């Protein structure tokens, strides 16, 4: 192919490239927006139907005696528990650290991870790295003792 023929071809091809690029851009934006709507619908359906397990900490005792016995603390997804305002579950107790522990729902039960040197006991055993708590387990955070209640969401 001689130079002038290539020049003509390349000059024409640039409009083809632009048409393809614009087509890609428009189709992708439309498809991504549609996908986002579907994802939002799925998330809504999951939350409406209730799929997971509801975890609740029921306060059994407080060594300071300031908190009401039987008070409920719901645990949703991955939850930080402590005395600091930035915690998901904030409990005003001198025996708790700023961020005392992280709780997360897993298939097998509730994962309890103490933060730093925080004092955490699950079913009578001091937790150093992580522990798994089940329905009815006793969880002690500092001077607070809780009973873990696991219930199926929207139980039939």
């Amino acid at each position: 192919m001689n130079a002038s023929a290539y020049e003509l071809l390349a000059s024409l091809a640039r409009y083809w490239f632009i048409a393809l690029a614009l087509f890609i851009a428009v189709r992708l934006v439309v498809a991504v927006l549609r996908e986002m709507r579907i994802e939002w619908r799925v998330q809504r359906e999951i939350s409406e139907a209730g799929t997971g397990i509801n975890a609740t900490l029921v306060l059994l005792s407080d060594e300071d005696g300031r908190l009401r016995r039987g008070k409920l603390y719901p645990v949703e997804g991955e939850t930080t528990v402590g005395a600091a305002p930035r915690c998901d579950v904030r409990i005003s107790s001198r025996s708790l650290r700023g961020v005392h522990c992280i709780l997360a729902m897993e298939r097998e039960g509730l994962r309890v991870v103490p933060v730093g040197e925080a004092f955490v006991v699950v079913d009578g055993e001091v937790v150093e790295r992580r522990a798994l708590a089940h329905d009815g387990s006793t969880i002690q955070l500092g001077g607070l003792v809780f009973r873990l209640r696991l219930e199926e969401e929207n139980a039939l």
Partner: protein
Amino acid sequence: MRSKDLKMPETDWVLLAMALFEATGFLLLAFFRGFDIVPMILAVSMPLLLAAQALLLRRAYPHMDGYILLIANFLCGVGLIALYRLDPDRALKQLLFYGLGVLVMLAMTFLVARGTLLRRLRLPVMLLSLGALLLTLLIGEENGGAKNWIDLKIISVQPSEFVKVALVLCLALDLSEKRTVRQLLPVGLFAAGCVLLIVLQKDLGAVLICFLTCLTVYYVATSNWLLALFGLACAAAGSAVLYRLFDHVRTRVAIWQNPWDSPQGSGYQIIQSLIAIASGGLTGLGLGLGSPDVVPVAESDFIFSAICEEFGIVVGLVLLLLYVILFARGLLLAMRARSSFHALLSVGAVTSLALQTFMIVGGVIKMVPLTGVTLPFVSYGGSSMLSSMLMLGILQGVSIAVGQQDESEWRLARAREEAQEF
């Protein structure tokens, strides 16, 4: 809702358009310097590779994010076309790294999706990263004012590219589970050590990316805006100090403010880049009809101006839109993630890639000072391609983990609804 609604809607038309774009580009290049058989082969194989990845991987792993996969591979394809037009030898080397990148991306995807092995690799990754950066300081080679390359005879490696990935992994692992100062000390020291060693290499683009990525991941994990603001103030103060210390930083700021002071000297590169973009105009000059090789390092840092010159600003803008969609999908994954580990991984990978893209595109169009980083997936460079693919692997791993969780919850929700109806 049917179960297939959970999967990606058909993007076959987009795939077809992307394949046609790549095929046309390589077909033109086959006749650019007389007849050349290599681009002819690429005109068939690159679209096939694109289609194979999009269709086979999506079928095998339906929870992979098909949009991210398509966009990243298309960007690699456009980069290869621009590279082949500039320097065929380098394009073939880049093709090799692209192939390797796909394998590396798959490996990272499964590591992230499983997660447990990643925790065990944390310490070796930290030590290896610090060791590689230290080695670069000792035996590295200087390039563009920065000493950030190690020459291994067969190939040259830029360790700071891989350190970005290591930082994202280690920060996400530690910040998702640990909260106290003592617990976060190891990862804090690792991040500080990496940033310091890269500062000593005078690779300021990588410093900025690493530091801001760390700060963003830290802020997202802890919501501690006071410390994040303090970090930003430190970054500003550090930049002022580095500006005074390093000559090449002062030069880059000066040519950003006014490149016309030295049109044949330090300002030459940016002036040529601006002329190239302007001469291309909206529709471009046509593939092979411009002179992008006039811009120094057009194949690496300045590839965006080379693309704008021959393909036009419209195509350049579409490429930027594709980056925006890729980053938006990554952030959406972070919002959908159930565990903070996956959310932080996604935020870290997106922040790093987005900062890199902003810095180089902004530098090329004289919006921000030039920092000498590469355009992810597009620019020439093995280390850059592999690190971008690793980041892509992180996003895909998170996508699989999130998708599996969504699907199991959705199935449970359906079963529950059916039971209630019954």
